[in-house]
Each structure stands twice: as C-alpha cells, then as structure tokens.
C-alpha cells in the first residue's frame, strides 16, 4: 500500500445547510496558495503583470477622478468650501479606494460562473475563487497609493495654502481600514457570486448597482456635507463608514470617529458572516447549476 494513503474522507448527505465548518476552513486555509497563484495567473493572462498593464490600472481611475473633479467643480460652480485641490484629493483617494472594493465585488461575483470547468473537475472550497479575485483587486490597488501620495506631495509644493495634512500617525490606521474594506468587499462578493449562479444577469445588474453605489458613497461628495438625520446614509451603506474614515485620515488628517470605527467593524463582520453563510450553504449546489 502506498504511503500516501493516510486519510479517509467520508461524503454523506448534509443534514444542516452548512457543511462542517472546521474541515472546510482548514481546507480553505491549506489551499490559500491556490487562490494567490490563480490570481497571479489571471492577471498574467490579461497582461496585468506587464509594466504597461500596471500603468493602465493607475491611469484608468486617475482619468475618471479628473473627469469627476471637473464635473463636481462645474456643478458646484466654485461655491466649494474646500479648496479645489483638496476636493481633487478627496475624489482621488475616494475613487482609488472605491475601485478596490468594486473590483473585488465585480470580479468576485463572476468568479464562480466563469470557473465552470474547474468546479466540475475538482473538489475544493469554492470560496477560494472569489478570494482569488479579491487578491487580484488588492494587487491592482497598491500601485494607486504611491500615485496619490506623489500627487499630494507635488500639490503641496506648488500650492502653499492647501489643507491636505502632512505626515501624521493616523496614516498607520490606513492598513487596518483597507483590511476591513477587503473583508467587507469579499463578503459582498461571496453574496453576489452565489446570486450570479442562480441568476446569470446579476453581474450585468451589478455594474449599474456599483455606479449608483459610487454616487451614494462619500467619494464625489464629502461626508461633512450631510448633517442631521441624512447622515444615516453614510451608515446604511456597507462601504460608507470605511470611505468616510478613509477620507478623514487622508484629507482631514484626523483619527476616525468612534461611530465611524464601529460602523466599519460592524459592516465588516456583518458582510463576511452573511455573505459567507449564503455562499457556503449553497456551494455544494454549484456543480449542478454550473453545468
């Protein structure tokens, strides 16, 4: 008998809707390398690992930010409380960050239906496919940060009276915030990926939803513009507290407020639990639905 034979797997009907979570999560963790490598290879196939591909990833949101900046300043007709440069920076960092979430959600939502053959041929925790999309989204997001920082540095050198903060300790909170955003978006991607298996036009609809989501998020407008009860919009939006806190760190140079911090963590936990439950409880059905 070969030495490799060391474990017995038993497949039985699942009485509860969730499979046993402990082995599932262990398998998920054991195969994480598959998700990272799959994401690298997918990027490679789309030439995103080339220099020009990287430039395009930065240029795309950069141009969009400029367009939105022009639109916003035209609509506001110069009645802006903040300086023009500050508005531009707010839109830039907001859009870059929002794009991270959007890429994560959009490509994650497609990952199951486009991974058909893989799903039909191999047994593995299916949540590794949206995870791989999330890793790609993160890898595409990193290069936009140095671009933002250089724009701020150049702006501060040219314009004397800009209110954009210099170096503060608050920047140390950015990685925490991005991790929370990544988990929140991954949870949302799990939800939409499952939905897309049952309704194949979900991703089509999702591109409109993401557009509206962008307008409803504090990216093109500042969170301070809302007052009183209307501020609830910021907290009903799963990405709202994170984007507000993000802008507070980058633009105001301040520590996120307690309600922002609670909002970030609450949405993160809620979305990963809900998305995770929705996905994992249905993923054994995928192989039947995909074929």
């Amino acid at each position, binding site marked *: *008998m*070969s030495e*490799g*034979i060391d*474990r*017995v*797997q*038993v*497949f*039985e*009907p*699942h009485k509860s809707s969730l499979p046993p979570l402990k082995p599932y999560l262990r398998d998920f963790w*054991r*195969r994480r*390398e*598959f998700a990272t*490598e*799959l994401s690298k*290879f*997918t990027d*490679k*196939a*789309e030439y995103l690992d080339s220099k020009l591909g990287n430039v395009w990833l930065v240029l795309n949101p950069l141009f969009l930010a400029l367009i939105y900046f022009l639109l916003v300043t035209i609509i506001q007709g110069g009645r802006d409380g903040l300086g023009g440069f500050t508005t531009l920076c707010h839109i830039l960092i907001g859009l870059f960050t929002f794009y991270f979430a959007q890429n994560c959600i959009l490509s994650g939502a497609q990952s199951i239906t486009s991974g*058909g*053959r*893989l*799903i*039909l*041929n*191999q*047994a*593995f925790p299916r949540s590794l496919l949206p995870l791989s999309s999330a890793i790609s989204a993160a890898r595409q997001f990193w290069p936009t940060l140095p671009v933002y920082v250089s724009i701020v540095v150049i702006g501060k050198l040219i314009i004397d009276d800009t209110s954009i903060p210099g170096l503060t300790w608050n920047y140390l909170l950015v990685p925490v915030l991005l991790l929370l955003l990544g988990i929140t978006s991954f949870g949302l991607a799990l939800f939409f990926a499952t939905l897309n298996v*049952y*309704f*194949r*036009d*979900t991703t089509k*609809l999702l591109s409109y939803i993401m557009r509206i989501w962008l307008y409803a998020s504090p990216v093109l407008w500042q969170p301070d513009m809302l007052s009183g009860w209307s501020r609830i919009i910021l907290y009903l939006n799963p990405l709202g507290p994170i984007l507000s806190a993000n802008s507070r760190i980058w633009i105001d140079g301040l520590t996120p407020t307690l309600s922002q911090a609670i909002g970030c963590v609450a949405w993160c936990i809620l979305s990963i639990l809900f998305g995770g439950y929705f996905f994992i409880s249905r993923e*054994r*059905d995928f*192989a*039947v*639905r995909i074929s």
Partner: protein
Amino acid sequence: MPDSLAVQIENLSISYKINVESKKTLKNALMRASRGEKVRTRTVEAVKNLTLDIPHGSVLGIVGANGAGKSTLMRSIAGILPPSEGRISVNGKISTLLALGVGFNKALSGRDNIILGGLAAGLSRDEIESQTDSIAEFADLPEGFIDMPVRTYSSGMYSRVAFSVAVNMTPDILLLDEALSAGDAAFKEKSFNKMRQLCEEARTILIVSHALSSINELCDQVVWLHKGQMLASGEPGEITEKYLKFLNVGELPSSYEDL
C-alpha cells in the same frame, strides 16, 4: 471502512433539481413571478441505491448509456457532488479528470496550466513545479508548444496535457471520465502503460468510457449502470459483451427485471 478498500459506496442515491427554464436570469424570474407562474424544475435521480466496494489496486470500468449516472457517480466519489442518501468513504488522495480539458485559462501557456492544475488538486507550488517538466514530457507536445498559450493547441494536445496532469499527481485513486480517447495511438499506449504502472503501485483507477475494447484491456472489474442503477458487475469481457448486446438489440439482461 475495511483497510483493503479504496472506495466504499453504501446505498448511495443522488438526486438533484434542475431548472428547466431556458435562461436563468433575474429578469425572467421577475417576469414569471408577475405572471404568477412557478419555476419549472425537474428532479433528476441520477444514481439510485448503489452499493459498491472498490479494493485498492483495482481498475474498475464503468459502462452505460448516456444519462446512466456515470459522471454523477464519479463526481460524487471526488466529493464534488454531495450524496442525497447513503455514504461514500474514500481512502486516499484523489486525482480527477472529469470535465474535458484542464479547464483553466486558454490565454496561459501549457506550463502555467499544469501548475494551476496541480495547485487546484491541492499540491503546493514547489511540489508541482518540481513535476512540471516530467508532466510536460509525458504530454509529449511538439517542440516549444508547452510554453505557448493553450488556445494555440489542437484538441488532442489539450487533452494530452490534461491527462498528464491527472495521472502524474501520484494519486491513490484516479478518476477518469471519457479521458481514454486523448491523443493518438502512440499516446494511448503510453497512457495505458502509465495506468498499469499505477496499478502495480496498488493505486486504484476508476474509468468511465465508451471505448469498450480499452475497458476490456485495462479493467479487472466492470460495472454496468443503467438509469442510475447497477445492472450488472463482474468480469470485463462478460459485462461488456452483455452491454454491447443491449446496445445493438436493446435487450436488457434478465436480471434487470428483478430490480
């Protein structure tokens, strides 16, 4: 389960619902709901009350007409489809070749697809990279093709790469669905030799195929599935002969009436 068995299947039934709608979209669902129509689904009973013991080191062939439940059975042994009733115990590492082709990115090279295939099968990057050359060599592609995008491959080359990945994962249990037709006569000979070598190492192989002569040559036991039920099992020659007779004249063996 007894140590001598690689796979033990007890009273296995698999049924699933399929949606008969032409397009599974939210739009259609809403339109249906507005007309007060229900979703039309059909329950498919793909495998019915199957019990089967597969010892280590055996080569089991599974034959049957289209829709007999062969692929469903293979997927359930691989852990891709959960059983509806009964249980499946699997003792050892499984490697699968169920859907045709490795099924990865056609824009990537054969080498990259081999690495992805190994990672999907649960190997680490180092493990698979050390084997990539031998897998590529086994696939025996024309000079330089292994580093070209898979979309430039002929279908034979494509399935040869897929086959090489599956057999070179050092599986304890190898599941092959319609994979014997990969490549030409020379490659067929090579793949048969590889499978015989795997058997000598006490590894177990399950083959679904319509190529009855290959089944006769390779297998030491054959199971005939018909509409989800096991009609007969036994010596390859005997079973394939019965099966062939059924295919030609539509005659089921008398034992079927007892089922």
